[in-house]
């Protein structure tokens, strides 16, 4: 008798489009997916354990390497958590600088996402156009902080250096020209029939399922849930800015794409307001050389990172080093939704789905 067997396909840790060392074991019937196993841990570096052995100040560079496409966001989350733990308030100017740089970082992270997502689906030119803009942003970072990728700029208590005078002119120029660039990317993708066919109705996740699985960030907003931590629990100086929260309708790949593209535009708005409102002042508050938060204090601080809710839970035992540092990486939680999204789809849709969740293995594995 003829009998059909399931085909097990391993999209192994080395694969051009799993965005890092992600391993997917797909069970296929023909080309339809009937089961997915997500295997992670190939990038686990023991960051949380390392945190228990070094003083609070020294951990900031490790946060760079979590979501390596958005280093400043992770810096911000950690630094804010330690400040809340020890009751330190950074000065106003420092807060504004932090927000401006974090929003630039959000744009840079979304550009990486857009470029790689489009390239996975075949549109290779978008990748180069996105990275052209990202180069300008990375030039800003180099100008201000000295580094392009693993930036390590925020400090507990403020920022270590001011925005140099040559930054402002170039930043305004970028803010003028970038919306046209977004139009370029959209011209190549948003109304392209092939793109629409590959992304509309693909890898759908409903709002209920998204909330149940703990999905956050643009992936959640693509399903129509209007939840953005910058609006729901404003932190730093976000409550002084006006910006919209883009949401999608159906929770398919296309909606998540549109949400992120729109978020880039909103980030431009925030940066504009930040540059207009930024006050003069100090850059750092005085922080003791050996920072010892009160014993028994514990704090959970969450921020809206480009990928979703990035949370830091720190427990202090009164010493220089944290007793326990737990990082809630958004990509780790978002990745849980992948099997549900691709169930019943085709192999080609897995690539679109991974791209649309925007997974970065640094955050998944820590």
């Amino acid at each position, binding site marked *: 008798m003829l009998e059909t067997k399931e*085909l097990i*396909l391993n999209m192994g840790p080395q*694969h*051009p*489009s799993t965005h890092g060392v992600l391993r997917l074991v797909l069970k296929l019937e023909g*080309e339809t997916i009937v089961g997915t196993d997500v295997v992670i841990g190939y990038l686990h570096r023991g960051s949380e354990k390392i945190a228990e052995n070094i003083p609070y100040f020294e951990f900031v560079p490790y946060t760079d390497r979590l979501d390596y496409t958005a280093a400043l966001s992770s810096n911000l989350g950690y630094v804010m958590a330690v400040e809340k733990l020890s009751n330190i308030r950074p000065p106003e100017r420092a807060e504004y600088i932090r927000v401006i740089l974090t929003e630039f970082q959000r744009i840079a992270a979304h550009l990486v996402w857009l470029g790689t997502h*489009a*390239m*996975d*689906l*075949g*549109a*290779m*030119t978008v*990748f*180069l*156009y996105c990275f*052209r803009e990202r180069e300008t942003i990375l030039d800003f970072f180099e100008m201000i902080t000295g580094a392009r990728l693993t930036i390590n700029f925020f400090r507990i208590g403020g920022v270590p250096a001011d925005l140099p005078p040559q930054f402002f002119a170039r930043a305004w120029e970028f803010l003028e020209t970038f919306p046209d660039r977004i139009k370029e990317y959209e011209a*190549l*993708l948003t109304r*392209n029939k*092939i*793109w629409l*066919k*590959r992304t509309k109705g693909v890898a759908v996740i409903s709002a209920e399922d998204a909330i149940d699985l703990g999905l956050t960030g643009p992936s959640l907003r693509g399903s129509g849930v209007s939840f953005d931590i910058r609006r729901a629990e404003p932190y730093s100086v976000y409550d002084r800015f006006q910006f919209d929260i883009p949401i999608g309708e159906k929770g398919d790949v296309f909606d998540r794409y549109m949400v992120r593209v729109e978020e880039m535009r909103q980030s431009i708005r925030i940066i504009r307001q930040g540059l207009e409102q930024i006050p003069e002042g100090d850059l750092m508050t005085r922080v003791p050389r050996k920072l010892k938060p009160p014993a028994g204090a514990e704090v959970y601080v969450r921020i809206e990172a480009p990928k979703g809710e990035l949370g830091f839970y720190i427990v202090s035992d009164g010493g220089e080093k944290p007793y326990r540092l737990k990082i809630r990486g958004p990509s780790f939680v978002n990745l849980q939704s992948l099997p549900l999204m691709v169930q019943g789809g*085709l*192999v*080609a*849709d897995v*690539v679109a789905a991974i791209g649309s969740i925007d997974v970065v293995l640094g955050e998944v594995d820590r």
Partner: protein
Amino acid sequence: MPTVVVEIIVVLVKIAVVFGAVALVVAYLTYLERKVIGHMQHRMGPMRVGWHGLLQPIADGLKLFTKEDIIPSQADRWVFFLAPVVSLVPAFIAYAVIPFDRNFYITHLNIGVLYILAVSSLGVYGIVMAGWASNSKYAILGSFRSAAQMFSYEIFLGFSLIGPLMIAGSLDLVKIVDAQSKVWFIVYQPVAFLLFLVAATAETNRVPFDLPEAETELVAGFHTEYSGMKFAFFFMAEYANMVIVGAMASVLFLGGWSGPVLPGVIWFFLKVMAFIFLFIWLRATLPRLRYDQLMYMGWKVMFPIAILNIVGTGLVIYLL
């Protein structure tokens, strides 16, 4: 000398010339693609090897030639060896009937179009053999997709050509070019031309139909396990097919070698290059279609349009 021997020598010389020219064009096509796509992407393409990268194809050829020949241990050895050959040879022998100028062709077949279609169909065997022999799931998936895609779109390719063939009244490539001496067939058969373009892109596994080699999805599809010269064969076969398809398009729709002032060969070359440029442009711009969408589009959209085109052409010819 007896005329038979002279004739044989002449034919051999023609074969050598065409073969050499095609090999050179195919090699420099890879360079052209990299340069054109590079410039479209705001970068420059190869610049280091030779002036502006002109020696790049030679460097690539040397590299592939000297690379270690890896054969997977579970592979079916003879089929693995034969697959690239079966892919490449049909691509090259199709050039035997293409008329580069009124009197410049290797041979003059009165069923030229049929010959080219038949010979390109053989290329599909090479892909199926490659996927099977590699004994790797990625390769097998890639070759299944490619085989189904290629023989579906070959049908549409054939159907789209029936329009111009009805007007020309012959399968002979030289006669078809002559039939376009007043008006090129693209004017009479715009629908067929568009269908031909789409079918040709699918036939040669180019974006947006390059699923069989979709590197981001299947690593490299049916040629995942190939390295060195065997890989070079597949690569050359793809580009040689592109040139064949460009040549067919220019002969059947754009008047072949006809054009003012310049010699026919130059016009032919320019027209073929225009098509190649179009293929390269598509590759730089468009995303890739999913496999089922590709098949849907072929059978449910292109096929009815092709049939309608044939019926329409027939009606017009009958009425006029």
